């Protein structure tokens, strides 16, 4: 499968403060990459760099084989979709209007979205099965519904590579499962997915690859089975965890007694 996003020797962070160095990473179509790491470990900084919102401090960052910083912002938006953590809605846009905003890079500067854009937004809404929410206002949605609407917005962009910053944060259990299911389904359709999470178990459920970032920048990368081990989790999070196989997958079981 085609490599959609590639980092070679990527340094990310700020001019005075490097957050991570020398990261090599490939994300292919159909892959789900889970990014795990403790709070303050630099996940968000990495994501902002991958999105081209922060300039890379070193190395190369390629989108479809082309240096990301040489691609026009609008063109990046047509290839790379971003689902922010907990979209803070200030105004009562309807879900349909919010999803339509995903079409920005397809709409002329002085124009309003046309029939093709409306169609794309409708398709994205249907693809996530939130048709009945289309006329609801985003400020009144539950966290899970809003997250699905934001994923729909990223799909409406036409992007085949999605970066999601903790898409299951502060969702109830059912909504976490729903979001993970959507991520897997999208990958099966050929989307490439990068998502951050605090739950290592989600990597076994939904990811094909894992990037584990420790505070200080040490990293491990590989399949969930290779990376999510009791030893690695102890090193990165400083807690005891048992990784237990059940029904052909693994679960992470924290050990609370010392």
């Amino acid at each position, binding site marked *: 499968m085609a490599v959609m996003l590639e980092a070679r020797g990527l340094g990310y962070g700020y001019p005075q403060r490097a957050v991570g160095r020398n990261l090599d990473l490939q994300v292919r179509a159909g892959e789900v990459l889970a990014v795990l790491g403790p709070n303050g470990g630099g996940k968000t900084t990495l994501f902002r760099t991958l999105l081209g919102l922060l300039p890379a401090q070193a190395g190369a960052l390629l989108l479809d084989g082309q240096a990301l910083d040489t691609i026009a912002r609008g063109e990046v938006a047509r290839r790379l979709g971003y689902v922010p953590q907990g979209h803070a809605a200030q105004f009562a846009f*309807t879900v349909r209007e919010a999803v339509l905003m995903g079409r920005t890079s397809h709409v002329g500067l002085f124009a309003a979205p046309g029939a093709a854009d409306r169609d794309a937004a409708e398709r994205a809404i249907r693809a996530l099965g939130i048709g009945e929410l289309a006329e609801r206002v985003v400020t009144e949605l539950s966290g899970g519904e809003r997250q699905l609407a934001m994923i729909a917005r990223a799909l409406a962009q036409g992007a085949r590579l999605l970066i999601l910053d903790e898409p299951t944060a502060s969702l109830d259990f059912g909504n976490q499962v729903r979001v993970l299911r959507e991520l897997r389904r999208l990958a099966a359709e050929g989307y490439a997915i990068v998502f951050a999470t605090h739950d290592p178990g989600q990597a076994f459920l939904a990811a094909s690859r894992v990037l584990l970032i420790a505070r200080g920048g040490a990293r491990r990368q590989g399949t969930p089975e290779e990376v999510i081990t009791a030893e690695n989790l102890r090193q990165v999070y400083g807690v005891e965890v048992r990784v237990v196989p059940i029904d052909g997958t693994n679960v992470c079981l924290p050990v609370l007694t010392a």
Partner: protein
Amino acid sequence: MTLRPRAVVYAFAALGLVLLTVLAFATGRFPLSFAELGALAANKLFGAGYALPPSAETVVLQVRGPRIIAALLVGAALAAAGTAYQGMFRNPLVSPDILGVSAGAALGAVLGIFFSQSVLVIQLGAFAGGLAAVAVVTAVGASVRRHDPILALILAGIVIGTLFGSAIGLLKYLADPYNQLPAITFWLLGSLAAVAPRDLAFALPFALAGLVPLFLLRWRMNLLSLSDDEARALGVPVTRLRIAVVCAATLMTAAAVAISGIIGWVGLLIPHAARLLVGPEFSRLLPLSMLLGAAFLLAVDTLSRTIAPIEVPPGVLTALIGTPFFLWLFATARRSWQ
């Protein structure tokens, strides 16, 4: 929330505006009947003969006409600017003077009055002062790095506004209490009483220069209500768009303030009310906001010249109407932003 109720809202607003305009022409110290107004309009438009005293024509064309047009223009401009600022700063409590336009315009005008300049110079001073204040505020906001850019802008606006406010206070203290001080007070409270056709010709191009970009960017404006990262990831050059909108909204506000003085509340209240009626989508919100703003200020100005033997400053009336309305909105309607 389908198309039809919205169309009804626009139709009502437009109809209300037309009726109010006719009413405003008819009422005042020199009342005119609708028949007289109709006869005058027929004469001016189609050359039909009529038998009215010449004073009626003077009242309509020289006195009430410019004043009514000014009220419509200033109301629409303040409402449009307020709509843009509220969307851009993601905050429905923001008004057009958030970046110090009013404070700068006031200082410019008060300086003009203090140095006994002509009306035109005072207006130019107001206009230039408004633009200068926003230029300083945006420069300060942009130079403060490592802060949320919007917070930096708003804080800079508050600080510069306060500074200009002290300068105005000083000028009031030093001003001649018999000639200049009443003029300054009159100006700071806002008034449309002295509007001449020349003032409108001065302000209209600037108001239009501000309105055209807002109209063209009407859909893209919605994207400014997202966080900067989100909007950028959707392909929007956020900083450039925000500067364009700040310039446009400032031009409109400065043009309005230059002819009417400072009339508060319109730019805060009207966009808010319009958003309750048609939702936050900017391309629907902007026209309704302008219609309501024009109607509101016309109503206020008509009241201000008719309810008492002396003119009540419209800024006082907007505050009297605005405060309870806003408190009511605040207490009952959370839907529009939360």
